[in-house]
């Protein structure tokens, strides 16, 4: 059913070379609205390169990117972010020394009205209310918004990173190996959050290695191999045929 609508993000003929090394060769890529997509491939298949192009870290050597149907070129990660693409890195890009509020509003803290605005004084109360609204909406339980985030568990930290994404209204979220550092229970909690993201109208691109987890969470998988796209699999559920086909594509 997801295939019926127009892709939110569409890339055609993307190539990227690093000197003589071919990272990506004529790769097409599409992401549908409200979709959870897994990007699969061995080490060096080009997943990271593709994701870095999507998030604006570097431009492709050739090919076009269309976002919401319009052709775009990202000059910086900031520009991609402004257009609604957020990357949640393995290290979560959190500031361990700062509290939950500062992390949600990182780099874009809100100042007070009136005289406070003139002096650029931050509006803690407003930010607290906004953070609380978002975290409550996502069912994330954090005991103190004023504690530095280094005091939180891996799962809680991930929740904070996701809350930040939701708060800023990003439409596409890229997650690089999000389950790498998590236990089984925390991974399941993360999958709930990813489904919540979907409910909020967000599309998610997941880079993952664990195929069982891919079957558990993703709706579609794109497989890369040595810089080329070798296959696509709509995931119908947790069944052997699906598993076998993905393995076959990866081999």
């Amino acid at each position: 059913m997801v295939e019926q609508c127009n892709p939110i993000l569409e890339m055609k003929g993307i190539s990227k070379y690093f000197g003589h090394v071919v990272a990506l060769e004529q790769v097409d890529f599409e992401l549908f609205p409200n979709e959870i997509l897994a990007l699969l491939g061995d080490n060096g298949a080009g997943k990271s390169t593709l994701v870095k192009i999507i998030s604006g870290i570097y431009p492709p050597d050739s090919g076009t990117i269309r976002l919401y149907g319009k052709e775009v070129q990202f000059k910086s990660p900031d520009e991609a972010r402004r257009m609604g693409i957020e990357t949640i890195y393995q290290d979560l890009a959190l500031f361990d020394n700062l509290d939950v509020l500062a992390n949600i509003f990182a780099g874009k803290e809100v100042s007070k009205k009136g005289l406070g605005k003139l002096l650029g004084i931050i509006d803690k109360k407003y930010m607290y209310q906004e953070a609380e609204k978002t975290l409550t909406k996502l069912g994330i339980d954090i005991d103190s918004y004023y504690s530095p985030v280094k005091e939180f568990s891996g799962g809680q930290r991930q929740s904070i990173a996701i809350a930040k994404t939701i708060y800023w209204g990003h439409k596409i979220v890229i997650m690089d190996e999000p389950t790498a550092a998590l236990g089984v229970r925390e991974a399941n909690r993360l999958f709930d959050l990813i489904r919540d993201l979907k409910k909020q109208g967000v599309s998610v691109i997941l880079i993952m290695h664990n195929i069982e987890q891919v079957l558990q969470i993703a709706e579609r998988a794109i497989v890369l191999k040595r810089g080329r796209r070798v296959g696509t699999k709509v995931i119908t559920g947790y069944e052997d045929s699906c598993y076998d086909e993905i393995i076959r594509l990866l081999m």
Partner: protein
Amino acid sequence: METIKARLSLQRLAHSREVVLLITLGVIALAASILSPYFFNAMNFTNILIAVSLDTVIIVGMTMVLVGGGIDLSVGSTLGFCATILARSFGAGFGSPVAIVIALVCGIAIGVINGLLIAYVGIDPLITTLGTMTIWRSATYITAGGNPLSDIPVSFKAFAQGNLLGIPNLFVIGLISIVVFDILLKSNTFFRKYYFVGGSEKSAFRAGIKVKWLKFLSYVITAVCSAVAAVLLVSRMGSAFPHSGLGTEMRVISACVIGGCSVVGGKGTILGSFLGVVLLALINNILVLIGIKAEWQGVVSGMILILAVLSDAIMLRREQW
């Protein structure tokens, strides 16, 4: 629920370096009053305030640099060089306003060089400022020509003798600096970004924070602070000495670290650093009052520095395990 909240905020208060330092200062002052009859009087307090004025101005910049994850070893040499340039400007016949502007521009130039090398070229701040520290000290000796420069107008020297409502003028400048910048660094949307840069430069960059510009600016601000301190110094001493500001960098960095800054960045406040300056000055004052030889000051200051960092290390360990 309310009691839990109250306890949490109390706990947070006890964790705050500023509160811990204030209590420590109170205890030390109390002990000093008992140890020496000369401690608790207006004259002695005025002396302490004058003694901390220069460092008070410099910690404003140094705290920003440290919070942003950098370090600046060149503050003492910058102080010395700007003081010499100021004295030479007076010697060349310039009036106070022009001479002060020359000294401040000199400070800006030094800060720009540090900032460019560290933020835009990408050289390690420790190495860069170790280099500029050596260069500007040498330049100070060359400019001063080996002798104190004492051709300073009386009107300029008068500033340091004056006071505002009983507070020495020198300290008024320091007080204004720390009050303004303490508020800015804690609560201003722009200056607060130093905590993000110091917390994780990579994440700050990804969050769209202009990391290089902020780092550059912190070194310029620090050098300007050193230049302002140079103006205060020349006014107070009535001379610029070739060795003016020698060792200032170590004392200022120590004070900042005692005050809660971390050399890896992301931590500290200007108020905390100021309390660190006061703590070191108070200890020195007491040592003098109770007749302990000045040679021992370094031993005590060093031990306080290590104690402060040690308490951090112990707290951090408890958090990790």
